[in-house]
C-alpha cells in the first residue's frame, strides 16, 4: 500500500468485531456463508467464516490466532499471516472494526 491506511492496523490486543450493518449469515439458497454489508455481499469460504465468527469484540487478536491454530492444527505463523491479511483487508473495506 503506498498511501496511509486510515483503518488502524491490527495489533495483538485488538478486539476485532463486525460493525453495525455487517452480518455473517448462512444461507442455503446461496450455498453457504455470506457476509452482508451495505450494498455488498461477500461469499465467505468455510475458513473465512470460521475466522469472522470469532470476531465478536470479546476475544483479542492473539487469542483468535491461537484458537484457529489449535482448532485447525496449523502452524501458528502461517495462521497469523493469513488471518492478518484477511482481517486487515476487511477493516480497510469498512467490514470490520479493530
Amino acid at each position, binding site marked *: 500500500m503506498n498511501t496511509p491506511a486510515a483503518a488502524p492496523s491490527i495489533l495483538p490486543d485488538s478486539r476485532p468485531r463486525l460493525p453495525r*450493518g455487517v452480518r455473517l449469515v448462512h444461507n442455503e439458497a446461496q450455498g453457504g456463508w455470506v457476509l452482508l454489508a451495505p*450494498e455488498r455481499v461477500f461469499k465467505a469460504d468455510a475458513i473465512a467464516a470460521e475466522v469472522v465468527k470469532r470476531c465478536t469484540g470479546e476475544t483479542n487478536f492473539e487469542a483468535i490466532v491461537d484458537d484457529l491454530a489449535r482448532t485447525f492444527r496449523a502452524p501458528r505463523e502461517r495462521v497469523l499471516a493469513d488471518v492478518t491479511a484477511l482481517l486487515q483487508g476487511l477493516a480497510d473495506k469498512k467490514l470490520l472494526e479493530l
Partner: protein
Amino acid sequence: MTTDGRLSGHAGHNGRKPLHNPLGMLAELTHRCPLGCPYCSNPLEMDKREDELDTATWARVLREAADLGVLQVHLSGGEPASRRDLVDIMAAARGAGLYTNLITSGIGVTDQRLNELADAGLDHVQISIQDGEPKSADRIAGYEGAYARKRALARAVVAVKLPLTVNIVIHRANIARIDELVAMALEMGASRVEIAHVQYYGWALKNRAALMPTRDQVERAVGRIEPLRKEHHGRIVIDAVVPDYYARFPKPCVGGWGRRSLNVTPAGRVLPCHAAESIPGLEFWSVKDHSLREIWEHNPAFNAFRGTDFLPEPCQSCERRDVDFGGCRCQAFALTGNAQATDPVCHLSPHHHVVEEQAAIRDDAEYVYRRL
C-alpha cells in the same frame, strides 16, 4: 425461448440455462415523493397511492423473497417514508432474515421514526444528496430546504450508529465537483459514497439534454475516482456507477436480466429491473396473483431475456458475452427500438452512432421535474 425456468441448481445441462437465485430485491414501497429530481428512476407513469400494496402483502412478499434466496432488500420508492407503515414493513423484512437497506430522500424520516427503525433492526441507510452547494442541491431536487434536511437526517443516522451511504447522482450541473462531493460524504460521517452518473431511463431520458455532460467532463470525473480511493483508503468506500453513453462497452445491467435481482413496484408488479416496463409486449405478473417464486421461475417476461441465446452478433461471438450479457435491454429498446439488440453503448454495436449523436445534444433548458 428455450429457457424452461426449472430450478435445478446445476448449470448448463442439455443446453438448459441455469436459473440463479436472486440476491437483491428493490422494494418500491410507494411512488410518492416530495422531491422532483429530474433523473428519477421511477417510470413516467407512476403507481397511484390507492393501488399500493398493504402492509400484510408486503410482509408476505418479503418472506417469499427470503425463501427465494434474496439476501438484501432495498426499501425505496419514491420516498419510502411517505408510507406510515414503513417501520412495520422494515421489521417484517428483518424478521424474514433479510438485510435491510433504507433508501431515502431524507424528507419524512423524523428522529422518532429513525429510532424506531434502528430499534427494529434496520441495517443500513442510504441518503441521496443532489449537490454539495445547498442552492444548487435544492434546485436539482425541486424542493427548497431539501439539502439542510438531508444533512440533518445524516447527522441523526450517524448519531444512532447506523452505517450511512451517501448517494450522489452526477450530471452536468455537479460533475465538476467530484472531489468536494466525496469530501462532503466524509464530513457527513458516511462509510460509503456512491458517485452515480445518471443512467438515462424514465425521467432522466426525458431530461437527457439538460443533464448530459461533455466527454471531457466525464473523463475528468471518472479519472478522479482512483486517486480519491487511494487518498481515502480505509476511511470511506467509493463506489462509482459509470456514465455509459461515453463508455466503450455496456454495463452488465442488473447483473443480467432475471439473474440476480428483482424489483417490486408499489402496486405489486414484479420486474427484473425498475425500467423494464418501458419495453412493450412484456406482461409482468403481480404478487397479488402469484408467489414471488412462481413469478421468478415462470413469468414469461422474466424468461424473455434470460441467458444470452437471444443476443445477435456481435454479442454472440464476443468474448464479453457472459461478462456484460450484451448490456441493458431497456437501453437497447430505447435507442434502437429492439429490446434484443446489442446495447448501442457498445462501440461494436451497429447502432453505436445513435449514442454518440444523443450525447452530443445538450441544452440548458429547465428541468422537467418528476411529479406524480
